[in-house]
């Protein structure tokens, strides 16, 4: 889906035609199937999709963190400055990974080392990527902990991860990610494991840091409403492909893909009780059993004959707003989801 990827001087990272192959017990599939993304300085791009759509694999692929030999990059380019991360040498990759492009994960407890103090783990990143000495790195760790809203940072820095609450641990993860002064931050469902009210605080923090450091943020999430609130641009993923992308204002005002429309329609909205919710029938397809043609056609009330056999390409309906649906005119005209 290229229109949105017209080069921009704010571009930090460009993913072009990324294909990730997956092989489990002899079964093969392209779990990510030709994804284009662009991260820009000071901007959050939300990558939205359900379980198994390939959104997390996309984020992992960017830093070449795919679990081998189960998954690997089969095709595509990941352009970071002059570097193509797909072909980059290990040394170059190590410099980028965790330094210039940092990542935070859903469950901070499993991503932090349980036997090192929080401060040591943050300081290690600063020593590695900024070449700071021990004392300077420790001071920087405490400073970062303060910046991410941890009270009594000097004391907390000496604590082990299990002594902190989930929200505090996620803050430590974020401090660690920032320690190498990254230009881009990949956040894979950073608040899913947290309580609703803690969630808002962590997202506020990410917003503030994005502005302060002009970070390019990729926010991977299953929650479209969260994307609408926190991102400037959105890419909606279904069954390995980006089905709609564009500025949040455009996509949420006039969704042009039935899947986007369905996801928006089927959520219960506070204060607007309905007799029954408009539901998307059927199930998310298994990665190894994706239907031919448009993967969404079995669940789609807008589908026509050719959706069963042909795969829709991306078409730009407004500057920067593109959708991969043959029937996008009908979707826009109707502007509402009807049960299949």
């Amino acid at each position, binding site marked *: 889906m290229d229109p949105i990827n017209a080069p921009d001087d704010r571009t930090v990272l460009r993913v072009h035609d990324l294909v990730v192959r997956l092989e489990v017990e002899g079964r093969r599939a392209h779990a990510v199937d030709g994804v284009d993304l662009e991260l820009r300085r000071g901007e959050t791009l939300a990558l939205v999709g*359900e*379980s198994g759509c390939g959104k997390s694999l996309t984020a992992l692929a960017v830093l070449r963190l795919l679990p081998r030999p189960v998954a690997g990059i089969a095709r595509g380019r990941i352009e970071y400055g002059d570097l193509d991360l797909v072909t980059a040498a290990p040394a170059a990759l190590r410099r980028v990974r965790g330094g210039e492009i940092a990542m935070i994960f859903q469950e901070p407890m499993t991503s932090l080392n349980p036997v090192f103090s929080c401060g040591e783990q943050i300081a290690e990143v600063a020593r590695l990527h900024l070449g700071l000495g021990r004392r300077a790195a420790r001071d920087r760790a405490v400073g970062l902990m303060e910046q991410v809203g941890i009270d009594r940072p000097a004391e907390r820095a000496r604590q082990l991860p*299990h*002594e902190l609450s989930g929200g505090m641990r996620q803050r430590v993860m974020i401090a660690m990610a920032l320690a190498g002064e990254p230009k881009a931050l990949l956040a894979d469902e950073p608040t899913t494991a947290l*309580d*609703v*009210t803690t*969630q*808002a605080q962590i997202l506020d923090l990410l917003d503030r840091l994005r502005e302060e450091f002009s970070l390019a943020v990729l926010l991977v999430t*299953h*929650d*479209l*409403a*969260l994307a*609408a*609130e*926190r991102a400037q641009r959105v890419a909606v993923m279904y069954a390995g492909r980006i089905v709609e992308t564009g500025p*949040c*204002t*455009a996509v*949420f*005002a*006039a*969704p042009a893909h039935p899947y986007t*429309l*369905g*996801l*928006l*329609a*089927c*959520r*219960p*909205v*506070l*204060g*607007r*009780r*309905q007799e*029954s*919710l*408009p*539901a*998307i*029938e059927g*199930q*998310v397809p298994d990665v190894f059993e994706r239907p031919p043609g448009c993967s969404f056609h079995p*669940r789609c009330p807008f589908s026509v004959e050719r959706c069963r056999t042909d795969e829709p390409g991306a078409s730009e309906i407004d500057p920067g707003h593109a959708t991969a649906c043959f029937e996008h005119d009908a979707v*826009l*005209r*109707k*502007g*509402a*989801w*009807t*049960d299949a």
Partner: protein
Amino acid sequence: MPEPRIDPGRPLLCVRGLRKVYRMRGGLPWRPAREVVAVDGVDLDVMPGRTLGLVGASGSGKSTIGRCVLRLVEPTSGSVELGGVDMLSLGRSELRGFRRHAQIIFQDPYSSLNPRLTVGAALEEPLRVHGVGDRASRARRVRELLEMVGLRPSHADRYPHEFSGGQRQRIGIARALALDPRLIVADEPVSALDVSVQAQVLNLLARLQRELGLSMLFIAHDLAVVEHVSHEVAVLDAGRVVERGSVDEVIARPQHEVTRRLRNAIPDGALGREFGSGADPGSAIP
């Protein structure tokens, strides 16, 4: 064997002064044990044929209440009456028999079904345990249950791993309904499901509650989800009910800070309009 009495004018489930204190061992062997008050004096009423939503942040005690009501967790003190029967005074075998009147739907449909039982066997199990009917009538009931939750009778021969999350939750619902209970405790029944199938399962629960005239204790952290299926709501914070009332009232005019916080935590503000079939597309195109 005590039987619950259903009196339309009186609460089916009546919880008074419920308290649950957990004793936690210190993180390290030489640290002293400490007490955590999970539920701290909770009163609840669920009327026959009504749904009470129990909403709160994680750690507010909502799941513990759900489990105490069914005595899956033993309350420290307080009383729980179902249809006039004091649940806490029941002995072990009495309780086992009485449990057919109150069933639970768990959050995670991946871990709540036995992977070695076919779906048919999983649905028949509660019937067999409670000595309901003969083999043929139980098989009929299994087919009926599958159809009731939108699955096919042929699914009875398959194993849980062959189903998606949404379908497994349907199976969980069917199993909970097998014994024709009067009360269902639904503990975050959709929060582990994909967004696009949550609506299906919520619609199903709301429909079954109406059609079967069930009483339901619906536990969730998401106020919008609670609103969709509940008649009344109780808001929990740190083991206490801080606000209660009709769903419409509580959501329109939240009185307590905690309710307001839960309401504001839902990022709906950025989505300005409805996208359902009743929506007006004219207003959407900028």
